[in-house]
């Protein structure tokens, strides 16, 4: 039996649609929240306060050490047993944000540490507090360094969101599975899904390049 081009082409539309309705908004929202979390965790991790840095360490270790699937499971199916029942979308966004937060925290931390010590000192010397120095001088410079590794995190996230169907959130991959189940042609449909994901990732990577260029204006070439 040859490759069913018809099915391939017909699958693209619905998969892309659910990509736009599910995958992309979920990835964007989780990434945005995850980044806020990541910066906080990174700051806790480098703080002199042992308790804070210990908490941050444990958090990163737990997130990176355990499968995302289990994290989703615990939040959606586990929390109700302690009386916390969240809707699918909030659950998904929380789970993915926590996940991104753990991975990105390490990136942000490395980026902050890569800003030369002299920048901290220059900030202090013009009278800035630690917080002000961080906000005005260190984080903006760390941002530039962390764009490429964070884009990796983001691209992985886009694909990881397929796990969201496990907690009742419809997205591109669930749609592909629906089509595959009906047509019994999973190979063809999955290839269509791969193409959709590839387009999403390529578009988003182009966004990364734009961002890098913007941030690059102050960097020697």
């Amino acid at each position, binding site marked *: 039996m040859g490759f069913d081009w018809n099915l391939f082409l017909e699958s693209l539309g619905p998969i892309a649609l659910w990509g736009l309705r599910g995958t992309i908004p979920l990835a964007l929202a989780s990434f945005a929240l995850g980044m806020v979390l990541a910066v906080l965790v990174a700051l806790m991790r480098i703080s002199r306060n042992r308790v804070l840095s210990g908490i941050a360490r444990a958090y990163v270790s737990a997130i990176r050490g355990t499968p995302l699937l289990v994290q989703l499971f615990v939040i959606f199916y586990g929390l109700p047993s302690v009386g916390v029942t969240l809707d699918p979308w909030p659950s998904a966004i929380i789970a993915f944000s926590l996940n991104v937060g753990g991975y990105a925290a390490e990136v942000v931390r490395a980026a902050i540490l890569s800003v030369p010590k*002299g920048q901290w000192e220059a900030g202090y*010397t*013009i009278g800035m507090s630690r917080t002000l120095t961080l906000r005005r001088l260190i984080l903006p410079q760390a941002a530039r360094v962390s764009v490429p590794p964070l884009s990796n995190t983001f691209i992985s996230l886009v694909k990881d969101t397929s796990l969201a169907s496990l907690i009742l959130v419809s997205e591109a991959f669930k749609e592909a599975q629906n089509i595959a189940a009906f047509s019994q042609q999973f190979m063809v449909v999955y290839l269509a899904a791969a193409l959709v994901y590839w387009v999403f990732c390529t578009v988003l990577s182009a966004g990364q390049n734009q961002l890098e260029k913007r941030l690059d204006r102050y960097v020697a070439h």
Partner: protein
Amino acid sequence: MSPTDPPLGGPAGGSDDAAARADRRADVPSNRSGTPLLKVTGLQKSFGDHEVLTSIDLSVRQGEVLALIGPSGSGKTTALRCLNGLEQPDAGRVEFDGGPVVDFSPATPRRERDSLRRRSAMVFQQHNLFPHMTVLQNVIEGPVQVQRRPRKEAVAEAVRLLERVGLGGKHEAYPHELSGGQQQRVGIVRALALKPSLLLFDEPTSALDPELVGDVLSVIKELAQEGWTMVLVTHELAFAREVADEVVFMDGGVVVERGHPDRVLRQPREERTRRFVHRLLNPF
């Protein structure tokens, strides 16, 4: 502006004591005397087991230039950083005329140490400009964000200062677009814009191309002539002789010799000073 206000803006008291500031303002370069603006006694600092400063005494009067010289590793940078609160001395007293006065001990709170920064500003060897900000933003960052001066006023002041050091056309440039000498001049202007009582320079020309050294030294020389009080770490002995009111030679964590530049650099009394000066003037 008062008629005694020097072209580069002139030193201003960072203290809140207006009377004291007026006093110092009147204290023009030709009149170098009175109580010291900065007095350091018994400064001591170790890194782990390594005692870098054993006991250092320094004092600078209003409008004076103090040049700190000494071999590499003798603790010049460390001493300067202690004055600016970037390093916490283990013991010793740092007092500014009109405050702050800090008696250091391992228990001295960080806040108190940081208070030293109200009065002085530092120019680094590696300039440490903020690479993500334009020249103008670099200069107004302290006045606007820290001192909460009106942005307009800060910009006007910055423009004037940049003009004076020959960077009038570079407001919108980013540091990486400037030569080393231009970057260092921006570093100086960034310090000046804070209107500190005291300027600290840590080998401000040693990272520069030999030809660019002149630019920066000229600016510092002008500042000296205009009455700014400065502590200057340098290896440019000829320059120290020209601008400094006093030269301090440090080695092994102590002050080995101090005095008028001509005396210390031409007829050093101590053998260690003599060797050091000789080596720098006759490298091969």
